[in-house]
């Protein structure tokens, strides 16, 4: 998985959690909270959807790593690539 693939997966999750947000021009280097109206309930949902859909665990201490799409990609891509191949 590339970092761009990873950003797309995160955006897919946000699109399902917050369908009322316009995601066409989300800047990857800006904090998600600063450009979208996402609250702590929404961030919790991003974490839980990552677990549900992809088996990725994000411990609470690491929630800050999900601040922007870039930081999501930095943090999550290695986790995705470390997953056992799905059969």
């Amino acid at each position, binding site marked *: 998985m590339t970092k761009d693939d990873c950003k797309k997966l995160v955006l897919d999750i946000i699109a399902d*959690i917050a369908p*009322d947000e316009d995601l066409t021009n989300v800047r990857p280097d800006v904090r998600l909270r600063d450009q979208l*109206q996402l609250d702590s*309930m929404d961030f919790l*949902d991003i974490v*839980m959807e990552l*677990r*549900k859909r992809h088996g990725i665990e994000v411990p609470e201490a690491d929630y800050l790593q999900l601040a922007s799409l870039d930081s999501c990609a930095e943090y999550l891509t290695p986790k995705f690539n470390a997953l056992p191949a799905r059969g």
Partner: protein
Amino acid sequence: MNTRSHYDVVIIGAGMAGLAAGIRLAHFGREVCIFERHNAVGGLNGFYSRDGRRYDVGLHALTNYVPPGVKGTPLTKLLRQLRIDRDELALRGQVGSRIAFGPGVADLRFTNDFQMLEAEVARAFPAQIDGFRALVAAVRAHDEVSLAAAPASAREVVRRHLSDPLLEDMLFCPVMFYGSPTERDMDFSQFVILFKALFLEGFARPAEGVRRILRVLLAKYREAGGERRMKCGVRRIVLRDGRAAGVELDDGALITADHVLSSAGAPETEALLSAGGLPTPRPTAPGRLSFVETISVLDRPPAALGWAGDTIVFFSEGRRFDYVCPAAPVDVRSGVICLPNNFAYEPGEALAEGWFRVTSLARPEDWAAWPEPEYRARKQEWFGAVQASARRFLPPVPDADLAAATVATDMFTPRTITRFTGHQRGAVYGSGVKHRRGLTAAPNVYLCGTDQGFLGIVGAMLSGISMANHHILQRG
């Protein structure tokens, strides 16, 4: 047929809170089952059929309504958390509502545009408008959903800003009628929840009423894999070493569970724990506030009788408003009129019949105690008194005209509420003491719903969501 004997989570009660909690838990893969003693979902906001007609219970209007595009409010949080597209609920805004004292003392109109209420206060109470604006600023700044908020008297906070007792009571009238579990005064956080829900946000309703909302919730729950068992009450929570091991059903069957989430109410849940051998050291007293509601079905829309301009009217006789459990079976001096036809429905959605509903405070002991024939006779007697009192606050319609237009009537009482929801004393807004964190005497039994303290149907659903998130999902 759901026949499993173990779940990750057992939910007691299929009302708004239980269903919302169930959707969250099932969506994130928990094995969850809702147990409901009644044969219908909805709890305090359900519906029933009689002579082929469907009657809503509880819901006059969905409060907390905001139009599309407004974010960060309870309604939008709820839609996101439950993955509901707002079009699914088909909410239509109110025409306009009114707080009416006297009759003839003062009227304040309000709509889903808050500027209307502000202009009305400026018109009717010019000396109070600066104080009113300061109060609104305090309400907006308050974090009412904090799970750790310290209790404060809403009356004291409001009096810091307003000096006219008439305006004070006029603001408390709708706020208390739509959710205060306590008499005379209420916790400021609860005042803020309701003030925002009623005035800063607004009223809406699907043309089909509460059924539409319940159908959406049931579909989400089913799609997520949640199970439910109807006519299947919980008679005690089974305990082992101070923790819930599961629940025993009315038929004696035992269901084991890792967590129990109860929307039965605080005193009712404490009774279930007590039946299992774990008494609560300081039990929660049941609430003191219950209501009767008269319902008239009309052969024409209320507008045809001259009642076109009001969706909801909150009325009180004279200049004061007494929100207390009455000394008589019903206190007809004050109440809430609901005309469900008066929402801005889309073409083709107009309700087939007219509806005229009036809700007033009632004393549950009387309604609970009467034997059936007297109960029926008293219902008839008070039906007339409640409607006559309320009609003083609507444009006049001759008795004969209303009688000619009426095709059916019904009335529910505190006795009906207890029978169908299990809430002691017919306490519609639950106990006066709220349990914000949802904790009980057992570490894996949590409360959700009205006794957790978020109010209104949006509040009830957010309560289920918050407790499921906080106690179960966030723990991983």
